[in-house]
């Protein structure tokens, strides 16, 4: 594939970045997408910017396969499984506890934390570890369909941890303060 020819000059009617992203993601209506394509086929500058979005997207795809942790969605989980990642899942309802571990063949461990999350778009997820006393908090973890939060951690990191208990809290944060939506207890063994 030939290298991209340098743009002679910036485009006088440059397509906004957001619109290029929408086009690339398939979120423009057909007529608008076709008009945009007519422009791209005569504009090296805007096409170059589209190529940048493609490259960024490819890199994100590669990162997701290796580095995705924290809040996750069922669609992403399914995609990881199709790429042959070995995922161990633990499902808990509010107030529940589970004995958990990361097996030698596992790539990812996922907690499915069920709760009444109707009307909440995102929560902070807080882990309190008994063996260190440390508290780790992840902000703005997306809520899935108003009823659960999925949280992933790399199995290779979990395998380094000693036996311990972790308390997990889901916190709804608003201007007027925060409230605990649900609690869970994990009994981790190596």
């Amino acid at each position, binding site marked *: *594939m*030939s290298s*991209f*020819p340098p743009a*002679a*000059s910036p485009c006088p009617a440059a397509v906004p*970045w*957001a619109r290029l*992203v*929408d*086009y*690339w*993601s*398939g*979120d423009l209506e057909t007529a608008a997408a076709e008009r945009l*394509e*007519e422009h*791209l*086929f*005569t*504009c*090296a500058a805007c*096409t170059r910017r*589209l*190529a*940048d*979005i*493609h490259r*960024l*997207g*490819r*890199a*994100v*795809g*590669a*990162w*997701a*396969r290796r*580095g*995705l942790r*924290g*809040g*996750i*969605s*069922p*669609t*992403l989980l399914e*995609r990881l499984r199709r*790429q042959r990642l070995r995922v161990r899942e633990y499902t808990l309802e509010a107030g529940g506890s589970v004995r958990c571990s990361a097996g030698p063949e596992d790539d990812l461990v996922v907690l499915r934390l069920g709760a009444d999350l109707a009307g909440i*778009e*995102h929560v902070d997820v807080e882990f309190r570890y008994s063996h260190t006393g440390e508290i780790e908090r*992840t*902000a*703005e*973890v*997306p*809520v*899935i*369909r*108003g009823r659960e939060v999925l949280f992933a951690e790399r199995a290779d990191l979990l395998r380094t941890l000693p036996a311990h208990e972790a308390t997990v809290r889901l916190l709804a944060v608003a201007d007027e303060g925060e409230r605990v939506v649900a609690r869970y207890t994990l009994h981790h063994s190596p």
Partner: protein
Amino acid sequence: MEPTPPSPESAELAALARKIAAAEPGVAAAEEERLVHLLGRRVWLYGVRHLRDESAADDLVQKVLLTVLERLRAGEVQHPERLASFVLGTCRNGVRDLVRGERRRRSLLERYGVEPVAVEAPAPLVDRRLGDCMGRLSDRERTVVALTFYAERGAAEIAAELTLSPGNVRVLRHRALARLRDCLDGVAGGPG
């Protein structure tokens, strides 16, 4: 109303098209190479966008540029000043043919009980800078970006899963990608 003057690129494409059409076979090799150089990447990006597969996009480039050159050599492109539109139309037909061909292939595989072989394209090297920059996004922004580019979902599907509106998803996505782009440019020391 005054007609819009052609862009410098359109003018160059038209000039190349006329030279190729007027030349004896084999004489316009430099013009044909320049045309391929100008259009190849555009056709490829069009293919990736519509076929979501880089090797299928490679096939599209071969198919489209061959068709365009053959038609130019045969003097069958009526309006050289609208060559870009002609190429775009050829791309649309090419994608339709490739999609139809792929459907037929899958149907045959299903009929004979053969599982299609999914060959994953080699992943690009994961830059540590990208990992650092992804780490600076909120969890929600990271999820939206990953759903867009890794799971290849549109705003409506992402919205349904994350209990957001499609408009919210687009805003989150735009913001996250702009921050990623600026972070990568800043870390690389390049222009912002």
